[in-house]
């Protein structure tokens, strides 16, 4: 049972990191992502405990930035902050409201908290009030994409995770 659980964690960590790298290849913008790599992480929130999810998130951030060549640079620190905020807020929200919500609201809260964490750390590097306006646009797009990702997350969970009984 424990071995199976370890295999599942490794599978989700690898999948999420792979999608993160793939996502950065298809979108040329420096700070804009679709957030598809967060779909496996949302599913992890349902299957694993906090520390296992922390491993998946850290693996995704470290591996994807190592692969892109931005390890320990500005984008890495900003992404790490965003992902950790998403993990803390998203995980606690999901555990509290698991029975009343699906992945749609987790995804929306996740997109919001992810952007919030990124903006808070980015404000240390960017010496401008312009960041506030960028934050509003990013969060607006993030919520729309979060909703779409959440719907896909529900479909993937019902079609694959329920059948495989991970």
């Amino acid at each position, binding site marked *: 049972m424990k071995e199976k659980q370890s295999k599942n964690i490794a599978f989700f960590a690898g999948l999420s990191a792979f999608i993160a790298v793939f996502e950065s290849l298809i979108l040329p913008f420096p700070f804009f992502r679709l957030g598809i790599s967060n779909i496996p992480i949302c599913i992890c929130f349902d299957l694993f405990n906090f520390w296992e999810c922390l491993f998946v998130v850290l693996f995704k951030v470290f591996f994807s930035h190592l692969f892109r060549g931005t390890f320990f640079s*500005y984008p890495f620190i900003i992404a790490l902050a965003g992902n950790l905020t998403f993990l803390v807020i998203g995980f606690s929200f999901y555990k509290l409201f698991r029975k009343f919500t699906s992945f749609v609201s987790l995804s929306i809260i996740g997109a919001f908290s992810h952007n919030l964490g990124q903006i808070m750390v980015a404000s240390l590097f960017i010496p401008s009030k312009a960041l506030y*306006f*960028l934050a509003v646009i990013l969060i*607006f797009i993030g*919520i729309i994409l979060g909703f779409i990702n959440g719907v896909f997350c529900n479909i993937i969970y*019902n079609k694959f995770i329920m059948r495989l009984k991970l």
Partner: protein
Amino acid sequence: MYRLIHKKITYLDIIIAVVFFIIIFFILYNNFFMKKNNSCSLLVETKNSKYIYSIYQKKDIEIMGEKGKTHIIIDKGKFRFIESACPNKNCVKMGWISLPYYPVVCLPNKVSAYIVCEKEQNEYDGISR
């Protein structure tokens, strides 16, 4: 480990989505679309100083950042970064910007620029008491 539950969109999901969407749309509407009678200018910020230029002119500006010079062009209502002393040139790739409050930021050189609009003070000259 607990039992897996079939996931469907619930009422709470829709409420959360709508509430978030309305809040953000309201902030967006207030900041970007409520600017009708405005006078706009270009605000360039570096780590230590701020520069303001009129956006309705043709001008070449050279700003000294942390790593070197950043070359910005203003062309009657729009601006763009032409050259910058940064490795990735993400700021140069942003192209022409004419939207108010849409920032172009050069992180390595610590230079940012965006168009600011202020409401014209032509409604009231002053307050009498």
